């Protein structure tokens, strides 16, 4: 997470090609573009001719053709070393395109299929009294559940995460800080289902509470804490030490220095980290399956009785296994992605707008 907040070191311009004037024949600059166009055309042609139904296969044929033709051409004209360089360049481009394909496909499918039933009624109604095989119904109860569970989880995890980060950066020295740092790292890797099982064994099996939104919130909080600690820590480390020293030199107690000088300086980055953490837990469904149990009706009380949540709603509708439910699942997925993406974009906007004020 942190890598998106911290400024990247500026890359000096990517390696320039060696000068072309040393009597070494080179392929013209437009060669890759032309070969790519030809390869795509050939891929489509072969795909249509051989009756391959899957577009993925067309793309694969085109990609292989492109790489092979570029290698052959470069090896003929420019020599083997340049050909290897071309090969590496083509492969790196292919890798990037390979990663973009699923992202575009996923977003496209979700938008195209989700938009069908997404309207005001879908957002403002629950599933109460709606049979799974009939169209209609909505996600209102799931939105309420998600907002409440994520809100409570944030209320638990944010203060603990912030204070831990302050401890690590401002006070932390010696064994305890090292151990905490290590376990925060380890905690980042806890699978969400394990956090759910922990709350299940503590809260529901041992303390004998029943399923509720709050139980889910506690599991979400466990997942959120290390993320908050990590991002806040990075931001606090960017606060220039001169600010702290100036404040302490004026006789301000250390705790007021932290509250009035250090935190306000880093607040933009801290907010960004917090929002990214919220975006991450908003999409978690595994602990909800174990702890919140799911519900078809509106339940505004997170402390009592089963609730639903957007990710759980998607799972439930998918499990119903009929077209009306699939439509609802896609629409809910669209709502969830929109929610998460908006959080992400706003967080990044804040990060850019309130870039950490480092010393120069």
């Amino acid at each position: 997470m942190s890598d998106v907040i911290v400024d990247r070191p500026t890359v000096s311009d990517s390696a320039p090609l060696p000068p072309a004037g040393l009597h070494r024949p080179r392929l013209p600059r437009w060669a890759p573009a032309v070969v790519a166009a030809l390869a795509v055309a050939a891929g489509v042609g072969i795909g249509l001719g051989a009756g391959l139904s899957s577009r993925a296969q067309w793309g694969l044929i085109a990609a292989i053709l492109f790489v092979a033709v570029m290698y052959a051409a470069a090896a003929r004209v420019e020599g083997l070393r340049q050909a290897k360089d071309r090969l590496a360049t083509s492969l790196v481009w292919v890798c990037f395109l390979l990663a973009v394909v699923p992202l575009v496909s996923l977003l496209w499918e979700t938008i195209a299929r989700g938009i069908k039933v997404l309207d005001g009624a879908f957002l403002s109604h629950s599933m109460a009294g709606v049979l799974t095989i009939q169209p209609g119904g909505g996600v209102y109860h799931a939105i309420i559940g998600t907002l409440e569970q994520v809100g409570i989880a944030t209320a638990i995890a944010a203060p603990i995460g912030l204070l831990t980060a302050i401890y690590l950066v401002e006070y932390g020295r010696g064994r305890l800080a090292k151990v905490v740092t290590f376990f925060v790292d380890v905690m980042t890797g806890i699978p969400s289902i394990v956090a759910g099982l922990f709350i299940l064994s503590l809260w529901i099996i041992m303390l004998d509470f029943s399923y509720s939104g709050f139980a889910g919130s506690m599991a979400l909080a466990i997942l959120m804490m290390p993320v908050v600690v990590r991002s806040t820590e990075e931001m606090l480390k960017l606060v220039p030490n001169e600010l702290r020293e100036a404040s302490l030199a004026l006789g301000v107690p250390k705790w007021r220095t932290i509250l009035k000088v250090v935190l306000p300086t880093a607040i933009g980055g801290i907010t960004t980290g917090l929002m990214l953490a919220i975006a991450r837990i908003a999409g978690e469904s595994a602990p909800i399956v174990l702890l919140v149990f799911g519900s078809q009706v509106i339940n505004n009380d997170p402390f009592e009785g089963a609730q639903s949540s957007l990710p759980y709603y998607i799972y439930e509708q998918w499990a119903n296994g009929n077209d009306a439910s699939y439509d609802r699942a896609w629409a809910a997925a669209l709502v969830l992605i929109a929610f998460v993406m908006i959080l992400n974009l706003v967080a990044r906007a804040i990060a850019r707008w309130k870039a950490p004020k480092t010393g120069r």
Partner: protein
Amino acid sequence: MDISPTSATSPPPRPTRAATRAGDRIFLALSRGSGVLLLVIMAAIAVFLTVRAANAISEDEGNFLTTFAWDPNSAHPTFGIAVLAFGTVVSSVIAMAIAVPIAVGIALFVSHYAPRRLASPLAFVIDLLAAVPSIVYGLWGALFLVPHLSGVYSWLDDYFGWTGVFSYSGGPSRSIFTISILLAIMILPIVTSVSREVFLQAPKTQEEAALALGATRWEVIRMSVLPFGRSGVISASMLGLGRALGETMAVATVLSPGFVINASLLEPGGGTFAQNIASSFKESGELGKDALIASGLVLFALTLLVNGAARMIISRRKEYTA
């Protein structure tokens, strides 16, 4: 990440009377308390899971490690993690084998190949992959990827079916290999972003020296960037492996589970720890839940091991380069 005394921003030690002020004492206690609370939570997770797991394993009439069944709710509870362990490890390792080369390619693309102005928007696009919730991947995998893969699988069966690993009889492809592909897509962003950071740190002087000697861009990368980034890529892939091991909902929606180990990766069946917990939770009785917790404990230990190793490599490398 590490708090070293040499770090430019950590305040100098000040054992003065400021520490005795009430406000300071309270604040220190609060912040240290939260740090300790995190440790307590970690310990509590281990303890509570172990207690429930011990209860379940003592009631198990099969062998917890080798039984090929999951039937903890009957009068003679019999369950074992053999199938789950196999499915979890195999799917995650295949996912890593698919994702790591592509992720290294993307990381190189962003750090060394992409036009400079495009580099950071492109990195952002890859980060967006990480923001998509796993249940949405599951939905996409089940309703879009599965139908589209059967063509590819028939082709694999035609040419590689003789190995047994890739034999495919044409049903819905809700198999271990499909979830491997899905997991590979899901762990791409983390492997990419960690590798990218490492590649960007490769010493510029070495790269420029190689270029000055007439090396092509690929030779620069092979001789100076990749050797420098090797340990970073290893730890990045282990972080990715940790993610893949614990992924729940995407697997639970796509896989069609069964308590058998299929020789063919393309046929439905098998299962993973996390998927089994999510899928069979609602039908579980008291002992059933304990049995699921026992399998969760194994998963917890597995991810702890993988993540701990990854962190260890990162921090050793940090000391080495510092």
